[in-house]
């Protein structure tokens, strides 16, 4: 299996603090992966680097069949190449309706003029309705996103990610602030999505990771500490030391 995303020996430091230290990481085209690690392990910085928000000091990030380097692309170009990101805090456009939020995320031309002359088609309207139904917001398409509850905003953001049809999905702590039932729904959705695309979930809730039932990468101090099944890594003495030793 060839890798969809290959992170090769990246390092980055902020004001002398090494957030990422010679990190290498690869994920296949249809794979679910959980990234865990204590606070400050570099999980979010790792996502920032892949999505173009932060530039690494050294190393390379390659994506796709042609192994295109992502380092020379900006956030928007990386997103267009097929990498979607779900933030920890739900970020939706609160002043706009659920339907407008989803329509904006729909896969379509992103240039100013393409957008200016874009018109909703029967297909796009149907797709928005379908996505809204999928994330349980079918009755709320006309409401402003700002009126939704926290959980509903999380779902709307997931819906927007689906609308983008990314090939790689980076999800930051999806279970934060969700009820038990919502967590189960989220798990099922992530597992289903990973059949057709790569999904990387950053999480530090072990129960949630266990439910995902996938390969786990443990980050510590900016590099990979262990990799394997959850049972495998939790038996690893280094991991036990990092998580329980202090």
């Amino acid at each position, binding site marked *: 299996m060839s890798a969809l995303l290959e992170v090769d020996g990246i390092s980055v430091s902020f004001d002398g603090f090494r957030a990422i230290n010679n990190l290498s990481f690869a994920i296949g085209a249809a794979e679910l992966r959980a990234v865990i690690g204590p606070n400050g392990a570099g999980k979010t910085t790792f996502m920032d680097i892949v999505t173009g928000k932060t530039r690494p000091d050294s190393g390379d990030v390659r994506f796709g069949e042609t192994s295109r380097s992502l380092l020379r692309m900006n956030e928007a170009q990386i997103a267009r190449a097929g990498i979607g990101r779900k933030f920890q805090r739900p970020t939706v456009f609160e002043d706009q309706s659920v339907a407008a939020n989803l329509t904006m995320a729909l896969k379509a031309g992103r240039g100013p003029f393409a*957008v200016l002359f874009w018109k909703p088609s029967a297909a796009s309207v149907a797709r928005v309705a379908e996505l809204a139904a999928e994330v349980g917001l079918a009755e709320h398409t006309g409401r402003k996103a700002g009126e939704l509850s926290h959980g509903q905003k999380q779902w709307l953001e997931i819906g927007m990610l689906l609308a983008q049809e990314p090939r790689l999905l980076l999800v930051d702590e999806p279970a934060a602030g969700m009820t038990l039932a919502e967590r189960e729904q989220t798990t099922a959705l992530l597992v289903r999505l990973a059949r057709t695309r790569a999904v990387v979930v950053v999480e530090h809730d072990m129960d949630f990771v266990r439910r995902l039932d996938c390969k786990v990468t443990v980050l510590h101090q900016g590099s990979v500490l262990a990799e394997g099944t959850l049972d495998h890594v939790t038996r690893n003495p280094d991991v036990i030391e990092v998580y329980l030793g202090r």
Partner: protein
Amino acid sequence: MTRQPLILRNPSVLVVLALLAVFTLAVTLLSQAYGSGVVPTSTVKILGKTLCLALAALAMDLVWGYLGILSLGQMAFFALGGYMIGQWLMYARTEAIVAAAMAGNPIPPTAQELREAVANQIFGVVGSSELPLAWAFAHSLTAQLVLVVAVPGLLALAFGWLAFRSRVNGVYLSILTQAMTLALALWLFQNDSGFRGNNGLSGLQNIPGLDGVPQATLSVWFLWASAAALALCYVLAAWLVSGKFGSVIRAIRDDETRVRFLGYPVEGFKLVVFTLAAMITAVAGALYYPQAGIINPAELMPIASIYLAVWVAIGGRGRLYGAMIGAIAVSLLSSWFTGGRAPDLPLPGYTVKWVDWWQVALGLSFVLVTLFAPKGIAGIFDRLAGVLPPRRHGRDLGPGQGALQEKEAKA
């Protein structure tokens, strides 16, 4: 699926167009040139100029209310539009006068002599007799009309490209725009910049080739042109902000980073809107200054652009008609209060003279609007239409931030 036409999706367009038509017709029928003469020509000019200011406010609202860039240099584009049309107005008129004066000469003047004489007439006041390079196209109305939109458009494009590419945002960007207009003003103040220094361009109310038409008639024509430009640009702006494009620019205003992660080239969108707004503002300026009659570099001082921002804030950001209402109401009130016609307000021990106190009142109302009615005058219409911000008072029911709230749960 058929999509509703723009007018049905955005009923304010129809209302604004109807009001503009009624207003223009009423002024025409009351004017000295075409009607009863109740409205004097000077008032017709003030009304025509006010429509131009409303057009500038419309463009400002696109940039500030929809895109979120508080541009404090917007009136630079307005004045540049005025300068571009002013060049032709002044050149062509001077040429006609000089040609008439030289017609009596025993030897008819050559084109070269005529040109030199015109240059001497225009630039004698700043001690020069040569036509600067910037006036190369001043003889051609077509060329100067193109320059009216091209020069401010290119300036906005270059400025925007540099600023947006470096991701300058917020207050820093506002200060940059202010610096731009100030720098331009200071440059134009110099005698050798080729635009007659602090004298500016004058006599613009006299339209070459229309010597026989009295000002009373011309003022009504300009009112029509200003109203037509405002109507056209209103429809254009309403179309721009109604669809997905409007959705994206409002999203950029609210959370630029998130829009980037959706794959939209944020800088491209900003450039398109900023440049388009600059061109609309320039058209407004090109219609304004022939009615004002004179333009000088003081028009580019940052204070003019700050006034524009105040009008839009009082009228209501993010609503196209709000910006227009703000510009029309505040600028008319302003010319009434500062015109010395407003009655003094006698207080015990002190008499409030509005000429002195108007600025204070305006400043105070700006602060009050910002604090208590951030939606401005347009907020009243929102309230009438029942568009209310989501009410999320009460305690959170769940542990998570933003969980269902007491009031929502009851509903």
